């Protein structure tokens, strides 16, 4: 490996800093056996860190450079701690420490110089060495340069990607040699692109060929800059850009479709419980939103009971959320709704009252503030399809969950005895009773099922939005809208309506704005209902006419 360690001597705080810093750390890494002697010199480390404890961020940047050039073997730990905000200084004795856990008021710390465990310190006594975005960028690129050589495959990929648009004379040589030793195809591809962008800046027309078809935004910026020039290079760059634009358009379409489906699946989840209680049973339940909220709160509760295991908590909160909401649903049905059978207006008012009671109950018992539900590691971030298109994982999971819930409901309604009884009771209550079906029991079970599904929606929503007392209010209107649009009493209608409303909304949003898009969707539904009062998939048969 050939690395130009020599030029570290004349490092200056400048645009070239990133490169110098990176190479410095690299030299340090390779030079560890040599640098071992530096370890004895404790005063040196103290001085290096002391230079960081200044107000000006520019001075801090130079101090970081100095640390890298010092080739001290603890440099990597210091810089990582600095990046994480864990490098702190004791106010009284001026000792530098690294905080290992910054929750609460007393923090466990270790000595930054010796690495000794110092027990717990009060946050009152510690002053953090602050960094800002510029320093964060500097530290990250320094640390990622090390990763390019020593990291695992994913780290190397990230590091190589970060280099696009940042290569210059010095760096290009060492990268070229790095390229020879690199085995991973993806890393090689990135390094090639990074080098091509550099060559393009030098006016090399062959570089355009390497860059053609890339969706990376830094590549696009470089090509745009080249296309603004004159001559053959500019023409080639223009052609490549036009090509890229075309692909980007396709990607944008795919992205909008994904956004629409994901928004649609949220709507379906929120509405599907209502499709049972309102659609099948005909009960106007204004407290439906609050049943969703209770599901979200059970998700939060499970995380409180299982601190440190957000993943398991999320999985467990699926049955718990279902049961909690189903139970509350039964209580509402027994105490309020059953006494108001056949009086929709009174039911509407009474359940609206119930919804206010539930909201205030949560405010009083839990807190009026939003609660934080942690997203498990495997649900955060996104999967990159290509440089321009990535799908967010939490929404992907919610989409899958919506499909599962829907499939399960269809099975229950069409393949189980409960489903059969529900359909019988809703179609002709008197006849069903005379056939020996206990209609009251079926009412309770159906309402519990619908409410429980609302709870499941809450568990999913807890991963996307606020868990607070107002959660339900924002979904109740949307839920009714989806059920009515889809056709009351038809689960498939709810699915199609939810997904299509989601897509329509996301297609309109970029050019109409979020506010107007929402209004346009509402107007569309009003017009649609005028034409087809029974929605997309009207229920047929005598029951529907009655």
């Amino acid at each position, binding site marked *: 490996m050939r690395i130009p360690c020599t030029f570290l001597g004349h490092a200056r705080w400048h645009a070239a800093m990133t490169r110098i810093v990176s190479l410095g750390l690299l030299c340090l890494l390779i030079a560890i056996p040599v640098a071992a002697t530096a370890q004895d010199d404790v005063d040196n480390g103290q001085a290096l860190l002391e230079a960081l404890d200044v107000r000006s*961020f520019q001075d801090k940047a130079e101090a970081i450079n100095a640390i890298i050039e010092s080739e001290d073997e603890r440099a990597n730990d210091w810089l990582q701690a600095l990046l*994480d*905000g864990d490098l702190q200084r004791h106010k009284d004795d001026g000792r530098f420490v690294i905080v290992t856990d*910054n*929750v*609460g*008021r007393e923090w466990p710390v270790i000595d930054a110089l010796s690495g000794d465990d110092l027990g717990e310190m009060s946050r*009152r006594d510690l*002053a*953090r060495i*602050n*960094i*800002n*975005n*510029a320093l*964060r*960028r500097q530290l*990250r690129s320094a640390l990622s340069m090390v990763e390019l050589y020593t990291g695992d495959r994913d780290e190397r990929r990230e590091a190589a990607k970060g280099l696009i648009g940042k290569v210059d004379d010095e760096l290009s040589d060492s990268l070229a040699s790095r390229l020879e030793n690199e085995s991973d195809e993806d890393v090689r591809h990135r390094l090639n692109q990074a080098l091509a962008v550099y060559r393009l800046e030098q006016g090399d027309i062959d570089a355009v060929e390497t860059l053609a078809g890339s969706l990376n*935004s830094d590549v*696009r*910026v470089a090509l*745009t*800059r080249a296309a603004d020039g004159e001559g053959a290079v500019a023409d080639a760059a223009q052609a490549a850009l036009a090509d890229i634009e075309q692909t980007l358009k396709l990607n944008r379409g795919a992205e909008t479709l994904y*956004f629409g489906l*994901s*928004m649609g699946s*949220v709507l379906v989840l929120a509405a599907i419980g209502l499709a049972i209680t309102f659609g099948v049973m005909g009960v106007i339940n204004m407290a439906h939103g609050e049943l969703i909220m209770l599901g979200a709160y059970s998700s939060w509760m499970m995380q409180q009971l299982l601190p440190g295991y957000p993943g398991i908590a999320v999985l467990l909160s699926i049955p718990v959320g279902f049961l909690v909401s189903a139970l509350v649903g039964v209580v509402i049905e027994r105490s309020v709704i059953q006494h108001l059978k056949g009086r929709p207006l009174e039911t509407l008012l009474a359940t609206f009252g119930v919804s206010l009671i539930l*909201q*205030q109950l949560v*405010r009083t018992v839990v807190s*009026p*503030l*939003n*609660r*934080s539900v*942690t*997203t498990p590691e495997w649900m*955060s*971030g*996104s999967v990159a399809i290509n440089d321009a298109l*990535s799908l*967010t*994982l*939490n*929404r992907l999971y919610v989409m899958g969950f919506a499909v599962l819930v829907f499939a399960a409901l269809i099975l229950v309604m069409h393949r189980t005895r409960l489903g059969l009884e529900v359909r019988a009771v809703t179609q002709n209550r008197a006849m069903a009773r005379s056939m020996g079906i206990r209609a009251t029991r079926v009412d309770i079970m159906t309402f519990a099922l619908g409410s429980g599904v609302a709870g499941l929606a809450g568990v999913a929503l807890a991963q*996307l*939005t*606020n*868990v*607070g*007392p*107002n959660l339900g209010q*924002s979904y109740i209107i949307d839920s009714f809208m989806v059920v009515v649009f889809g056709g009351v009493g038809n689960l498939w209608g709810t699915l199609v309506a939810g997904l299509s409303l989601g897509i329509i909304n*996301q297609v309109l*949003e*970029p050019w109409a*704005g*979020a*506010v107007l898009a*929402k209004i346009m969707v509402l107007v569309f539904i009003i017009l649609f209902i005028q034409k087809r009062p029974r929605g997309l998939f009207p229920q047929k048969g005598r029951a529907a006419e009655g």
Partner: protein
Amino acid sequence: MYQRIPSPRWLAASLIALGVSAPAVAQDDDPIKVGILHSLSGTMAISESTLKDTVEMLVEQQNEAGGLLGRELEPVVVDPASDWPLFAERARELLEQEEVDVIFGNWTSVSRKAVLPVMEELNGLLFYPVQYEGEESSENVFYTGAAPNQQSIPAVNYLHDQVGVERWVLAGTDYVFPRTTNRILEAYLKDEFGVADDDIMVNYTPFGHSDWQNIVSEIKRFGSEGKKTAVVSTINGDANVPFYRELGNQGVDAADIPVMAFSVGEQELSGIDTGPLVGHLAAWNYFMSVDTDANYDFIDAWIEYNDDETVVTNDPMEAHYIGFNMWTEAVRKAGTTDVDAVKDAIIGVSVPNLSGGYATMMPNHHITKPVMVGEIQDNGQFAVVWETPSTVAGDAWSDYLSGSRDLIADWRKPMECGNYNVAEGTCMGSNAEEQAEEALSGD
């Protein structure tokens, strides 16, 4: 130009005031009534309920320290339930039936506008603790939150000068505060920095907006064209949690496209995992992470009062802390809780803030505040990365809007005017009623 330092005269006056706290004789043994007008139910309960607790805690502390003028303080709490017209009714109830001596309250601008005519009619005292859009100065209201020149303008200067931002996304919730702020900012960006129309993207979303996929993706596209881009966010309340989640999930890194928020504080962040948000910015006049003993004492007291280790403090809480202390100081100085006497006495009063400096009440009923820019940390706190060298006096009327450029407010005798036109040399007078009607009908 926004760094007005309080003149030596006020400082002197306030120092005297501090020294000569009158050895008051109890005039009567009735308690002094402190009205608290914050929503405890409805949408705004999330933000306002902690402010109610804050004032109650301050009252309790004051009573433990011997009360005020030898009398006990008694908090009177009412719940306007996030219903703007109800704010006016509750304010009337506090002043007419409960006969409170002072009111601490309101959060949204529209609720303040609703209360304004009641305050002026019944001659009450209101301390308003939230950052707002300016363009107002009432004889009966003391604005302890930030005016635009104490928050948005310095924040934009920071982004331009320190971060080198050339393209701007102004994203906000669709109501009066973001729209006014963005109007001021757009004019400021074009006039001061010569930003082109193409380099400004304005976006409004409804209250409680939860599906941010498209907007975040648009911001990413807008910011990937080679120029340094930043988002200036006046997104309010609940909508922030899904917005920041989406930012994190779509990988919008603060080092590439920083988001500078004007309505996101420690409390809003307590609802999210801030790991992916490290480095995004907020501009306030106080952060919980401020490293002073006064602040640590306040936090300790707050934790004890709530008996909960995880509670956070935020900027409007500090504003109430300052406002409450200013009021007690003015009452001591005046020797009475009489509204007119306190109103006169409070101008020029200086009390310590929580960041190690002093806040002074200016003649326009706004106070002096330091302006800080903080970056979000992974523990839900902010680290201050930039701060004005001295405190900034709140400007009631923006210098960047044509209608208000010539207006000043000065409630000292003999001017006693909240909107004096310097160019014409006349006082425009009160139009609180009209403003209230306008605000309420627009809601």
